[in-house]
């Protein structure tokens, strides 16, 4: 099928889009667009858009699933796929109409600007993205081809590492402290604080800190900890753990800013396309597509919709505050535009919603909280009275990495037996036990000895201990 556009056309549209984006103040990385067909698009989706990625069966599984959904028309393909790298790379599907290409290009510049300027992405080192993934792929393939290692062994480690990859630090803008710093801090903390009345107070007793404890502070990067503290792992095994960890770290900012990012890109594609003075046919198609993408998902959350609503609300509240807004938030010093550019730099989904999703907005969007009861999802609260606060809290917990339980390693020598002790920081949400068991099995595999997880089950503190191929659940009294 011949494409419905030429590259020259795209280039001239792109020139106008880029000029508009710049005039609005967007500041993207250089951008590359690649035209592909739907089969390639599925491939890119499965491998997170990376031109080169290491192999693992889970990607094959994902491909089959996406392809089935696509073939049966359950879900379409995304119009756009853009990866956070410098230059940013985006894929355009050749079967799409010219308007969709124009829309996608504008949308991509929004994402691109967000990648470059939002603080969570500072840690991703966009200029090395492609090379890093390529290097990972080459190394994994080399291990698979190494006759002394082979596919089975590599897969065993990768399966285990994938299961644990999201158990890592979430806020990458905070630098991880080194061992020396941790020691220093431990000593510092145990030292009695300066007391201006020490001449009349009894001298406080000095308790020497246990500096031999491993780890000194609870450790969230499970894969890295095991890599550094299990002496029985081979170099290639350590390398695989590192690779999976690095990939997870790369994707964490994207998980953390899904709503902001999609909302931001949608906000700007709308404004950019409005300046382009599209011919009438294209204008109508644009309205249709735009409304498709941004229609609220009944019974769920459409991040595009929620995101753009909040962005537009911020801009309005700063440009045209109502008397209520003035009373609640004080006088405005910035214009709406300035404010949203500031927000796009310094927030992530959780803080974005906490600060800028207002009570009125929650009511306007008809947000509700649901709970599963007897196999059904049942509406538990709607935004009446004071319920909006609870709904907002629930929403905040369900965005970004909020859906990943926080689990930290507390002791690598539990009971003086080199048992790995972890604690789940329970916030009212229980772990799914079958999944916990299987994941502990993986953890046991790479740690090599018993692992114990402290959590709560139905309100009772419990220990899940995995050793000798089985899980024991002990309530703590």
């Amino acid at each position, binding site marked *: 099928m011949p*494409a419905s556009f030429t*590259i020259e056309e*795209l280039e001239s549209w792109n*020139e106008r889009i880029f000029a508009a984006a710049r005039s609005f103040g967007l500041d993207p*990385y250089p*951008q*590359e*667009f690649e*035209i*592909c*067909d739907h*089969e*390639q698009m599925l*491939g890119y989706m*499965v491998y997170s858009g990376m031109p080169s990625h290491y*192999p*693992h*069966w889970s*990607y*094959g*599984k994902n*491909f*089959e699933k996406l392809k089935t959904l696509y073939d049966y028309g359950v879900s379409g393909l995304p119009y756009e796929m853009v990866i956070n790298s410098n230059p940013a790379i985006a894929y355009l599907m050749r079967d799409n109409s010219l308007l969709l290409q124009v829309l996608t290009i504008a949308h991509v510049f929004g994402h691109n600007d967000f990648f470059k300027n939002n603080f969570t992405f500072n840690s991703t080192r966009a200029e090395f993205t492609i090379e890093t993934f390529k290097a990972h792929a080459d190394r994994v393939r080399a291990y698979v081809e190494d006759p002394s290692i082979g596919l089975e062994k590599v*897969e065993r480690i990768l*399966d285990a590492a*994938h*299961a*644990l990859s999201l158990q890592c630090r979430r806020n990458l803008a905070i630098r991880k402290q080194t061992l020396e710093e941790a020691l220093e801090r431990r000593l510092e903390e145990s030292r009695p604080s300066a007391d201006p009345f020490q001449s009349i107070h009894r001298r406080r007793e000095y308790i020497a800190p246990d500096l031999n404890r491993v780890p000194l502070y609870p450790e969230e990067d499970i894969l890295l900890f095991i890599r550094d503290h299990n002496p029985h792992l081979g170099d290639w095994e350590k390398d695989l753990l590192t690779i999976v960890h690095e990939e997870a770290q790369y994707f964490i900012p994207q998980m953390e800013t899904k709503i902001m990012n999609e909302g931001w890109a949608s906000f700007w594609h709308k404004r950019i396309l409005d300046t382009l003075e599209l011919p009438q046919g294209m204008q109508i198609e644009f309205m249709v597509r735009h409304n498709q993408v941004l229609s*609220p*998902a*009944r*019974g*769920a*959350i459409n991040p595009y919709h929620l995101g753009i609503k909040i962005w537009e609300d911020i801009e309005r509240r700063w440009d045209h505050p109502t008397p209520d807004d003035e009373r609640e938030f004080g006088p405005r010093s910035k214009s709406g535009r300035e404010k949203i550019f500031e927000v796009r730099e310094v927030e992530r989904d959780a803080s974005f919603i906490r600060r800028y999703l207002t009570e009125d907005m929650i009511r306007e969007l*008809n*947000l*509700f*909280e*649901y709970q599963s009861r007897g196999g*059904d*999802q*049942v*509406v*538990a609260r709607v935004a009446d009275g004071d319920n909006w606060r609870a*709904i907002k809290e629930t929403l905040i917990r*369900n965005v970004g990495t909020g*859906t*990943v*339980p926080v*689990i930290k390693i507390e002791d690598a020598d539990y009971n003086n037996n080199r048992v790995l002790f972890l604690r789940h920081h329970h916030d009212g*949400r*229980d*772990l*799914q*036990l*079958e*999944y*916990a068991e*299987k*994941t502990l099995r993986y953890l046991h595999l790479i740690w090599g000895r018993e692992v114990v997880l402290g959590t709560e089950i139905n309100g009772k503190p419990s220990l899940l201990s995995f050793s000798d191929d089985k899980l024991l659940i002990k309530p703590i009294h």
Partner: protein
Amino acid sequence: MDTVFRTYDPATAQRSDRSAGDRLRHREKVHEAIRHNIADIIAEESIIGKDRDRIIKVPIRGVKEYRFVYGENVPGVGQGGPGTQPGQVIGKGEEGGGAQQAGDRPGVDYYETDVSLEELIEMMFEDLELPFLERKHLRQMEVEHLYKRRGYRKKGIRIRLDKRRTAISRVKRKKAVQRADAFALRPQRFPFHKDDLTYRHTVTEIRRESNAVVVCIMDTSGSMDTMKRYLARSFFFLLYRFVCTKYQNVEIVFIAHHTEASEVSEDAFFHKGESGGTFISSGYRKALEIIDQRYHPSLWNVYVFHCSDGDNFESDNPAALQAAKEVAEVANLFGYGEIKPLGSGYYGSSMIQFFSQLEADNFQTVQIQRKEDIWPSFKGFLSRERAREDAA
């Protein structure tokens, strides 16, 4: 201008099936998982006498990607309409109504995949450790020669041209011409004429001995659990396949019995669980009745196999023996298999000892304890087949 457009290149697009290797590996893992539960699957699925291209949905475990995730008691947020009220049901369990993280939540305990029956049977053969040579026999139905040569015709297809007879008829014609026109005798060409061509003629013949019926009798007392059903089903399946390779028209009858017997479908046969006592004789009587009514031994080859865990009422034993004798008389092959998986305990009587009183050379008892026993006992069973001249 910092933007680059890279054009579509059909050549790289065709080469770029990058996930092929990972898909293959995933497929392998699915198969591994199926093989792992083959006993459960075969025991649950109807496979005997089904079209082998049929696709069945098989539940599998073990190809999920596990992580630490929250359980079901976790609330989520969704967007509703103005009329959304507390207490309204917005979705069923896992799939519907989830917020955007719904995909991370654990789904049902397993997911289903499609496998063709052929693949499943192949895996069963592997599980039973069938010799390769035998597998081939059981998989392919040998086409019997049903075409017979019957005389010659002047018309036919080229492949059946009988050269010898064609040449002879030319010589005959030549001689006749020479006789009729003796004066015109001079050496000249005498080519084949189309009247010379002679073709072999064949007719389709329906052979009587291609009818066979497999009568599966099973004790459906409550103690027949999944493993026993798997063993029984595998055995019946092998028998059915074997009979299919020898006969063109094979029918299959399932008889379930406890104290009474009834003819059932395959599905009901393997899923029926009943309690109560066991009268083996009732199953045999029912078999005899069905054979007499529908599969008379003068027209049909009859294969009867009975699976039980061997716990029969004492009082029924003489009747069972008598009925078994009668079955042995009408059947080509009659077998009794006692399924007692290891560790199930030898409570109750074993019918094997009792049936040793039955002196018929086409009767065989087998004991199946493990799946490894199936193939040897199956071979032993077949060795007793009685050549039947009268059914031919």
